[in-house]
């Protein structure tokens, strides 16, 4: 079963939000994560797919069938909402068995299937409890079991982890991907948490102001964002406006930066993207860069070198995120190195040239 959006457009009467001309496809068993800031239109996408609204243009296909005019009740999708929305007057088992009851599955069979679903989410013993007695993470699991027990055509997850605390969230990510793979079901997961997206997705769709900016696997989205909006939203980024002066040189507020700009015309306005982990600290003792990937660099190639003052130094455990003030600009870097930092180097290969 697959999900497909063909040139889908929806505009709200207020003129704000909505979607313009979205096309994407989610394959069988694929986990597509839709990300974007709030108000970007990602919730609209879910509502259109769920059947709470109909697109004004374009079409949505589930398993190859146009679902225009099919009500939410008959779309046969499994949806997990942010609020879980378990039914408080039913036990956990009754909650999970409810969609089967609606499908007129016999009593014994639906209890059996609900028990299996509950076991898969690791709550085998919670069947007789009321949802109100469960923790947030457990309620989340019940909601997931309830959305999958009737083998829906596709699974939609609407910010399912945003109400959980940080520690639990990472565990739930693994659980969701594990269960989603086991069910081998086309899944759309909507979130504003880019880390969640990067760690879970087969592919990520980045939506901004109702438009699909990029649809790519997590690594490609991170390493090769199509523009500054994507670059800034996914991961940390140093973004420097500049102008191409030669195929290997871009002029910026930090001076001329060595990079690969051969695809751009001389004089073109561009933005340079440098991820913080590509910024290598120069250590005071030997004056050489000592970052973790220093060995990879070819000797003799030009390298961008900056000296400055450390203004912010955030120790995050495994890494340290620091701000180095160079002239009027700030370079943010990440390193495992714990010594004094007074300068950094950036390899030309690690500088990505984006449209301005």
């Amino acid at each position, binding site marked *: 079963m697959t999900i497909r959006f063909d040139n889908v457009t929806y505009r709200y009467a207020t003129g704000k939000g909505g979607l313009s001309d979205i096309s994407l496809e989610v394959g069988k068993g694929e986990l597509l994560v839709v990300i974007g800031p709030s108000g970007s239109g990602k919730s609209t996408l879910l509502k259109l797919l769920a059947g709470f609204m109909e697109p004004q243009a374009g079409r949505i296909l589930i398993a190859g069938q146009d679902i225009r005019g099919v009500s939410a009740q008959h779309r046969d999708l499994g949806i997990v909402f942010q609020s879980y*929305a378990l039914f408080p007057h039913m036990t956990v088992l009754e909650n999970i068995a409810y969609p089967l009851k609606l499908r007129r599955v016999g009593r014994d069979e639906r209890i059996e299937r609900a028990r299996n679903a509950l076991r898969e989410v690791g709550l085998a013993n919670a069947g007789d409890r009321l949802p109100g007695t469960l923790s947030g993470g457990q309620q989340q699991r019940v909601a997931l079991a309830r959305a999958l027990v009737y083998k829906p055509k596709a699974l939609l997850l609407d910010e399912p982890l945003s109400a959980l605390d940080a520690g639990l969230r990472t565990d739930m990510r693994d659980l969701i991907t594990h269960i989603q793979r086991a069910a081998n079901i086309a899944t759309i997961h909507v979130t504003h948490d880019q880390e969640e997206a990067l760690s879970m997705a087969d592919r990520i769709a980045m939506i901004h102001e109702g438009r699909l900016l990029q649809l790519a696997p997590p690594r490609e989205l991170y390493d090769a964002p199509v523009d500054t909006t994507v670059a800034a939203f996914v991961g940390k980024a140093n973004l420097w406006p500049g102008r191409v002066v030669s195929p290997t040189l871009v002029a910026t507020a930090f001076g001329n930066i060595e990079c690969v700009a051969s695809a751009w015309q001389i004089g073109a306005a561009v933005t340079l993207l440098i991820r913080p982990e590509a910024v290598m600290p120069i250590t005071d003792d030997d004056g050489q860069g000592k970052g973790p990937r220093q060995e990879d660099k070819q000797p003799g190639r030009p390298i961008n070198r900056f000296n400055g003052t450390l203004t912010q130094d955030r120790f995050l455990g495994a890494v340290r995120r620091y701000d180095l003030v160079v002239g009027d600009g700030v370079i943010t870097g990440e390193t495992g190195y714990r010594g004094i930092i007074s300068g950094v180097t950036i390899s030309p290969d690690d500088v990505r040239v984006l449209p301005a």
Partner: protein
Amino acid sequence: MGLVTFLYTLYLIAPIALLLVGSFGTSWTNSLLPTGFTLDWYREVIGDASFRRAFMTSLEVVAATCVVNVVLGVPFAYAVFSAANRGVRLAARIFTLLPVAVPELVLGFGFIIVFSSDYLPWLGTTWLLICAHIVLTLPYLVATLLGDMDRLGIADMEKVAETLGAGFWQRFRDIVLPSLRYSLLSGLMMVTAISIGEFQISNLVAGFLSRPYPVVLLQAFYGATGLACAATVILIILALLAAFGGAAGAHLAQLRQKVRA
């Protein structure tokens, strides 16, 4: 704070306590407290045909008011809650609160004017009295239900149920009604308490043979003090029963709320 609470409680309890004392006193004229002990006043109230009749009328009116409240109030509250348009929701809420805001006297006169005409000559019938009580009590039930629908997250639950494959009636039966049962109980107790003690409209609208208990009670005040006290105590007991029932319902609803949170 403690003192204020004490004084307030005293102010609230004292008249009721005095009524209770007076209902057992043989005679109570020009003295601080009555003299003698007797159960005669209660016997007299119970033996009085018009009191008995009024008591039964009151129960009838309360029962009918509750039933119609459920039949009208639940769908109405649900419709207001589900209305997509904010303006509609606001208008509906204001509209339901009108009977609370308008003085009962005004409502009563309205009833008299409309239903004493030749076209609608129904003034004095029991069912018109019931209608008056419904108009008066429905806002309280609807307000209780609407408040709880918001708090319980019915909208989200319904949305989920729809995606799980539940149609409108299935959602109403399986999700909405069970979620609202405690809320309905506490709302109905309030309706009962209001209906039992209601005097103003009843006095204006009720016919001589369909007078509810509070209206007949007024007559007792023209007779012996003890009789009036005894008759009032019976009304208080009825009202207290309803109030305690309401409190218990609200408590249950709250307990469930905690479980959910």
